[in-house]
């Protein structure tokens, strides 16, 4: 057994993250149970305080603040060990904002050149898939084929994982992402950014059936999602509420938030269950920023228990839900174990990359 440390850098959107993860190399890669993982360092410098002012992620601001942050995080992560702190480098190559991605990639390239160690470019979405693998209990139940629901501000995807590094997108949003639906609904209600957590907070004691909102794409046989129609419905309903001046009533607000949340959660859970049945998977992953939503986790776990016996529910740890570098290290590990390498001279960002 040999220890193998990966230094990972992630700068695809608003988070700058650097991490060192130690893998105990098993002789046989397919025997996942033999792997032990230790996250040595996991540093995330959330830029949300800057972004709140703008009500979103602005590429220029994001890229500009990535530069000093990535340097200070790297210094912190490597410490006195310097180049001997890692055996390989993993970096997010896409999808994301080009300008932001490039900051991380340039840093990784320089390190690869100086340390002469292997470098691998990782897909951000694959990183999200790997975030569930960082959990030891999840690894115990890890058996392909798996189904993953990736939900975040920019993504809503159902991914069928046939093996490590072998994926197929079987469903995705046709317009807005689930996180975007949360954020924009919150904006329509006049809630501050980021809207998702605000709605979840309000919805806690609300009645999810108080308002009749549509469940888009429910009857559609495909596994795709659509949230733009919901946005319009939210707008119309909320206007009705404002006309009667009911919107100042806290009770109404709470019920409205609960109804929005339920509409989104319902569709996500239903389509995931449908996909799981269709492809007879042995486990379901729930990853990405929106998976922080308690109701989504609870209802997904409940539905799986009810309708799919023997299927494991594998949500990622709360620590690794939002963008982080530990998950990039894990995905990088999968790729490196398969023998993949990148040439640092030729590596560049790929903002529209799909898994």
């Amino acid at each position: 057994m040999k220890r193998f440390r990966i230094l990972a850098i992630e700068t695809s959107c608003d988070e700058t993250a650097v991490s060192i993860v130690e893998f105990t190399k098993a002789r046989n890669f397919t025997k996942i149970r033999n792997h032990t993982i230790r996250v040595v360092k996991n540093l995330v410098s959330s830029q949300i305080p800057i972004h709140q002012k703008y009500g979103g992620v602005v590429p220029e601001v994001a890229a500009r603040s990535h530069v000093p942050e990535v340097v200070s995080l790297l210094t912190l992560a490597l410490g006195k060990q310097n180049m001997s702190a890692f055996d390989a480098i993993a970096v997010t190559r896409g999808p994301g904002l080009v300008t932001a991605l490039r900051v991380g990639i340039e840093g990784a390239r320089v390190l690869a050149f100086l340390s002469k160690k292997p470098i691998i470019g990782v897909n951000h979405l694959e990183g999200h898939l790997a975030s569930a693998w960082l959990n030891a209990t999840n690894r115990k139940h890890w058996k392909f084929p798996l189904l993953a629901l990736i939900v975040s501000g920019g993504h809503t995807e159902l991914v069928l994982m046939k093996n490590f590094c072998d994926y197929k997108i079987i469903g995705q949003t046709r317009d807005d992402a689930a996180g975007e639906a949360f954020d924009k609904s919150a904006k329509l209600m006049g809630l501050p950014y980021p809207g998702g957590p605000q709605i979840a907070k309000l919805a806690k004691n609300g009645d999810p059936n108080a308002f009749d909102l549509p469940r888009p794409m429910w009857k559609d046989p495909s596994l795709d999602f659509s949230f733009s129609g919901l946005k319009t419905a939210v707008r119309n309903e909320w206007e009705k509420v404002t006309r009667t001046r009911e919107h100042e009533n806290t009770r109404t607000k709470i019920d409205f938030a609960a109804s929005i949340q339920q509409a989104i959660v319902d569709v996500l859970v239903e389509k995931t269950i449908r996909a799981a049945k269709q492809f007879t998977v042995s486990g379901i992953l729930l990853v990405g920023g929106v998976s922080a939503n308690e109701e989504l986790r609870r209802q997904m776990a409940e539905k799986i228990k009810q309708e799919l016996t023997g299927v494991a529910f594998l949500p990622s740890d709360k620590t690794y839900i939002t963008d982080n570098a530990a998950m990039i290290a894990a995905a990088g590990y999968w790729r490196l174990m398969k023998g993949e390498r990148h040439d640092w001279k030729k590596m560049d960002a790929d903002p529209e990359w799909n898994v």
Partner: protein
Amino acid sequence: MKTETPSIPLVRGKFLAPLIRGVRGVSVFRLKKLSDWDQVVKFIIPKLKPGTIIALSGPLGAGKTTFVQHLAKALGVRSTPRSPTFSLVRSYRLHPTSYMPTRLLHVDAYRIEHTHDLTPLNLQEELTVPGTIMALEWPENIKKWLMNQPNKKIFISIKLHPRNFRTCKITGDAEEGSRSRRKPSDG
């Protein structure tokens, strides 16, 4: 309102007359159902030439992305454009036809508050790529930048009315071929 794109292809020729078409260079469409967007798209397509910017304004949920989806479909894009709010810019290759344009840029300025935030997106440079047309959502956020562009512009403003009915006002370079000297208002 359902959001699935209709599978009926556009038929050349005949389209329903817009609601009002009296004023020069201003056309208004009344939209009741999703397939009505095809009428708007049909009206717009002959006016497009490489470098054209289509500025789409309207409130959240008005149907700006829906319009782009219909436009892309009519122009032969195989995939369905998704909301570019998160990624800011998405680019689509148009099905090669005998004439330009060949590339559709879908830009969303929803999250952009200052014109200088646009610099890293290199929009100017992207527009010079031969055969590019651009659909821009939330143009009011980058009005200054937009007004400084020498490109042909078409302004589409979508209004929501009660009972899910919309009007869509199209302003800009009036008739095909004729160069309107009048500065288009931010319709």
